[in-house]
Structures are given as structure tokens and as C-alpha cells.
């Protein structure tokens, strides 16, 4: 894996060199110039080829929505992309299904800066796990905060900058920054259920796989459309569906599943334990 990453970095370095040489020597046209141009073209096409390679791998990856509890082989590290109040509530309800044990599971929550509501809900959920399960069965968790791609009422002109900042936050602060020792380096599965920041995470994973940083077998992106979407996909859902950036894509109602030809997993939010 290190050697492949080395090759990728070397290729980028060569590309930069090729372009700069082309600029400095453009007055004298000779054979080396032509060769350099060919090289530059190759450099430009490499990412495109890589994009299709990563996409093809994803197309061959399937998500098995197991109906029965499965045996865990080793440690797992799941990333949960939380969004505004409603999405967070749904995500936690899908998680709180009274399963027997969280042993060997690390849960990382990605929260947008200033989203205290999500922070509050996830802490309530985690403290409940701490209370209800034996110490050996709780697993571990951590929270990472990222800049919002676009705040409400933010002027459109500054959006590209904040979006880029948000993407960097996601790459370096969430995806590449591993939890404490003993857990896996990259998430096994990433869960998202509708907030727009899920799109950024999917994009970041795609780019990191293209650059050979994240191995293709890691960071499977699983999108579960919000329970509130009965017959149409949300904007985030549509974008993920049409770009094919998710490894797994599911909805919670039959009408929307039929309309887009996607998997219906039923209302997973009702897996939640009730306080009757």
C-alpha cells in the first residue's frame, strides 16, 4: 500500500514538473517538448482513469442487509454523519435497537460546528449505553466537529471557500485522523441519512480512494434515506443516487423504493426501543 501511495505522489510531482518545464522552455520547440506534452496529457488523464477504477470497484461492492445478528470477527469502526436535529434523531433511533453488545465497536460521530442539538442527543444516547451495558460491552466512541459547508444566510460568494474548508476538515479531522490505538485506522462503514454534509463525506472518501490513501475495501459509504421521505428522495439522496457515490443505498418506504429502483429496508427508525 505504501509503495502505491509513493507512486501516486511521484506521479503528481512529475506532473507539476512537466507543466513548469513546459512553461519555461516554450520558446524552443523540440522533441523533449513533445514528449513532455504527452507526459502532461498522461498526468491529466490519470485521475480520470483512477476515478473510473474506484467507481468500478464500488459497483462491484454490495451491502448485505442482514436480517439476523452476525458474528463480529474483529474490531469495527463506524462513522456516523449527524445533521440537523431531525436527521440526528433518526440516526440515533436506528442505532438504539437494543442489540446485545457493542463490544469491539468504535462509534465516531461527525457533528457540524454549532449543532448543539445533535451533540446533546448523541451524548444522551451514549450515556444511556454506558448505564445499561456492562463495561466490557459498551465499546468506545468519540466526536469530531467540522465547519459547515454553508451556514444559513451565508453569502453565496463565500460558499466555495467554506465548502473547501469543510472538505479539508472532513479529510484531515475525521477520515484520516484515527481514533485512539487499538481501533482500526479507517472506518469500516460510514452511515449518512440525509444531511448535506453526508455528500461531502462521500466525495472526500472518493477522492482519498482515488489518491490511494484509503484502501478500496474500507470506508463503505452507506446511505439510508430519511424515514420522512415517503415517495421522493431528498436532494442529498438524489445527488448520491445519480452520482453513484454510495456503496449502499436504501430507503425506508416502498413508494420511494419503486420510483428510483432502490432497496427498501423498511422503517429502520422503528427498530428503536420504546419507553412504554
Amino acid at each position, binding site marked *: 500500500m505504501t509503495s502505491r501511495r509513493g507512486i501516486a505522489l511521484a506521479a503528481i510531482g512529475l506532473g507539476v514538473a512537466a507543466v513548469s518545464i513546459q512553461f519555461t522552455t516554450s520558446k524552443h520547440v523540440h522533441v523533449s517538448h513533445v514528449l513532455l506534452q504527452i507526459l502532461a496529457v498522461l498526468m491529466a488523464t490519470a485521475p480520470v482513469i483512477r476515478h473510473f477504477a474506484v467507481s468500478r*470497484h464500488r459497483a*462491484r*461492492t*454490495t*451491502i*448485505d*442487509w*442482514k*436480517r*439476523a*445478528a*452476525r458474528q463480529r470477527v474483529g474490531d469495527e469502526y463506524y462513522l456516523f454523519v449527524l445533521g440537523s*436535529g*431531525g436527521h440526528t*434523531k*433518526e440516526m440515533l*433511533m*436506528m*442505532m438504539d*435497537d437494543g*442489540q446485545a453488545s457493542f463490544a469491539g*465497536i468504535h462509534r465516531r460521530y461527525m457533528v457540524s460546528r454549532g449543532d448543539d442539538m445533535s451533540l446533546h442527543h448523541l451524548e444522551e444516547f451514549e450515556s444511556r449505553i454506558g448505564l445499561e451495558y456492562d463495561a466490557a460491552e459498551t465499546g468506545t466512541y468519540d466526536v469530531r466537529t467540522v465547519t459547515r459547508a454553508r451556514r444559513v444566510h451565508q453569502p453565496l460568494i463565500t460558499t466555495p471557500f467554506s465548502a473547501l474548508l469543510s472538505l479539508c476538515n472532513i479529510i484531515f479531522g475525521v477520515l484520516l485522523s484515527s481514533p485512539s490505538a487499538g481501533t482500526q485506522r479507517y472506518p*469500516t*462503514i460510514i*452511515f449518512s441519512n440525509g444531511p448535506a454534509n453526508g455528500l461531502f463525506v462521500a466525495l472526500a472518501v472518493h477522492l482519498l480512494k482515488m489518491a490511494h490513501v484509503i484502501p478500496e*475495501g474500507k470506508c*463503505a459509504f*452507506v446511505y*439510508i434515506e*430519511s*424515514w*420522512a421521505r*415517503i*415517495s421522493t428522495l431528498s436532494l442529498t439522496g438524489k445527488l448520491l443516487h445519480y452520482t453513484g457515490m454510495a*456503496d*449502499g443505498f436504501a430507503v425506508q*418506504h*416502498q413508494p420511494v423504493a419503486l420510483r428510483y429502483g432502490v432497496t*427498501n*429496508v*423498511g*422503517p*429502520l*427508525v*422503528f*427498530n*428503536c426501543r*420504546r*419507553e*412504554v
Partner: protein
Amino acid sequence: MEKHCLVTVGATVGFPDLTRAALEPVFWGHLASRGFTSLRIQCGPDSDWATSDLDSKMSQIPQELNVDVFKLSKNLMREEMTLCKPVEGKRGVGLIISHAGTGTILDAWKLAVPIIVVPNTSLLDDHQTELARHLSKEGYAIHSSTKLDHLKEAVDKIDMLREENQTRWPPHSLERGATEQPASIWNIEVVEAHKEEASQLAQG
């Protein structure tokens, strides 16, 4: 015996039509006649005019009913919705009347409190009506409009909803087969095609 009714319009946009309906003395009379002892209205940005409206109608509140208006609650589920849960010998089954916000609907489901869902049809693309229709079809909620007649009728239907739900809840929605085990996000497995082929080759 106490019996609470909570009306909630959500935190951000408000829902003047629902707030106005909940402040009608006719509606109060109906609730009182159905044994309710308390009506609390969470009305977000509408709270200023709603408060003064309530103040001007104090004399028309039925004797057995308490009516209160408030803007927001830090934790609506823990602080307000739990009042609608029955307590043996002290409190009867209450009622939540809500805009079609997902959060409130899911919280009501969690607490097993009957809910009347009133979609705010003035919102962009009116996605709330679809959700309300679906919920009433599935038997989770009663669908109503902000019209007083509809609301009164809906209040009369809640006992029916409760009975239906006791036989259906906690089992999952009709969309699933009776024997089929529901999927869980903790059981999801990622299957890579080339690995599967490789293991098949190894077995063969």
C-alpha cells in the same frame, strides 16, 4: 384525574393557523368535555400574539381546564410530552397535536402517546401532507387540518387509535412481513465481489 393535551408547532417557522385554532374557546370546551384538564400550546415565534390573545380570553376558559402558552422548551420530549403519558391512578392517557415535524412524530411514537398530525400546507412543496397521509394510513397517527370541526373530530378518534395501536404496537409497521426479522444497521455486511469470487475459487 389529570389529562394533558400538548399542541406543538415546532421551533423555527411557527404555524399561526394551528395556534389560532388551539386558542378557540369552542376547542377548549370540546377538550374539557372529553376529560382533559390541561392544554399547553408550544407556539414558537407566534408566542407574543398568542399570549395576549389568551390573556384577553381568560374568562372563557372552562373551569376544569388549564390553558397555557409557551414559546419553546429545551427538551420538549422530556419536559412536555411525558406529561401525556398515563400514570396509574394519577394521570390518564393524554394527546399530542402536532405539525407534521418528523422529530415530534417519532418522539410521540417512542412514548406511545396518541398523536394528531396537522400538516402546515402553506410550506414550500407541501411535503408534510404526504407524511401525514402515510401516517394515518399506517395507523400511527390521525390526520387533521386546522379547521375546528376536523380537529374536534380528530380528538374524538384518539381512543380508537389507541386501541388499534395496542394490538399493533410494538410490532413493526405493516410494510414488513410478520415473520421477517427487521434489518439492523449493526448487522450490515460489506461484500466485495472479487473477494467472493476468490473464496469460491478456494472452496472449489
